[in-house]
């Protein structure tokens, strides 16, 4: 799968993302600047983490209006793969590619800590190398990761199986104490209805090498590389 990483001013996690993609696929991803509009030839577009446009107005609000996002929308509409991590997830919600919004963490503090994610379904291109119900560790680093959607939207996400990952204990229990940012129903990541757009707050790309402290995130990128 040919991957491109979309860069907005203020994004700072593109290098980790590039390492994760290159290490698992053997190919360096193309770096796509926010003014570009021709994304032909790319199968996967990744919106990495950071602080696009300084988080002005709302996290991801400015990036969602940039020229490249029209091309990202077209790509998604054609059934192309999109992965948004952290600020990338916020941008996808602001752009309307995923429902809901990411609010300020319930405890008001920026959280920089590992969390554990329970895999809610494994029959997607992103999660194919995990088992359903498996738990993997992922670092999180965000101030606004508190997933919010109205009850009707949350019910629809559940009914249609669009919850990708939930914050859980290391043993896989979805409990309030595992939900440090206060997300609705412990939701850490969601899919679009075609299961080809994934947004999540934690950073699987930060655990793809023993030198980083683990390889918990590697299966996600291996699965994408193999797709």
């Amino acid at each position: 799968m040919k991957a491109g990483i979309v860069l907005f001013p203020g994004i700072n996690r593109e290098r980790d993302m590039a390492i994760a993609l290159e290490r698992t696929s053997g190919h360096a991803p193309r770096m796509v600047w926010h003014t570009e509009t021709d994304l032909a030839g790319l199968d996967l577009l990744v919106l990495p983490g950071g602080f696009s446009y300084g988080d002005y107005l709302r996290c991801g609000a400015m990036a969602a209006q940039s020229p490249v996002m029209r091309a990202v929308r077209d790509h998604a509409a054609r059934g192309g793969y999109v992965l948004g991590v952290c600020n990338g997830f916020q941008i996808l919600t602001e752009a309307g590619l995923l429902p809901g919004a990411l609010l300020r963490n319930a405890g008001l503090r920026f959280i920089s800590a590992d969390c554990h994610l329970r895999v809610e379904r494994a029959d997607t291109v992103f999660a194919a190398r995990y088992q359903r119900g498996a738990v993997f560790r992922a670092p999180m680093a965000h101030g606004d990761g508190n997933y919010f959607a109205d009850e009707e939207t949350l019910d629809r996400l559940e009914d249609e199986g669009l919850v990708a990952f939930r914050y859980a204990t290391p043993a896989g229990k979805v409990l309030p104490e595992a939900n440090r940012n206060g997300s609705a129903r412990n939701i850490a990541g969601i899919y679009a209805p075609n299961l080809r757009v994934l947004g999540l707050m934690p950073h699987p790309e930060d655990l793809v090498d023993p030198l980083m402290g683990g390889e918990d995130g590697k299966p996600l990128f291996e699965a994408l590389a193999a797709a």
Partner: protein
Amino acid sequence: MKATVTVMLKPGVLDPQGKAIGHALATLGFAGVGEVRAGKVIELELKESDPARARAVAEEMARKLLANTVIESFRVAVEGA
């Protein structure tokens, strides 16, 4: 013509910032403060002299960018209207 857009989190959307401000006010000894909600105010200088049109364009701006209507509501005030 100046338009002012006030953006607030919708009722029911947790406002931890407002809560923290409320706690700080209590710490300062201000008694009798109920719920505190925090929002933002955006002032727009518009090249438009018709108040109705100024309001319409400010509302469109609010829907498209200034507010995220998933979580926020907004109101527009136009100077002299």
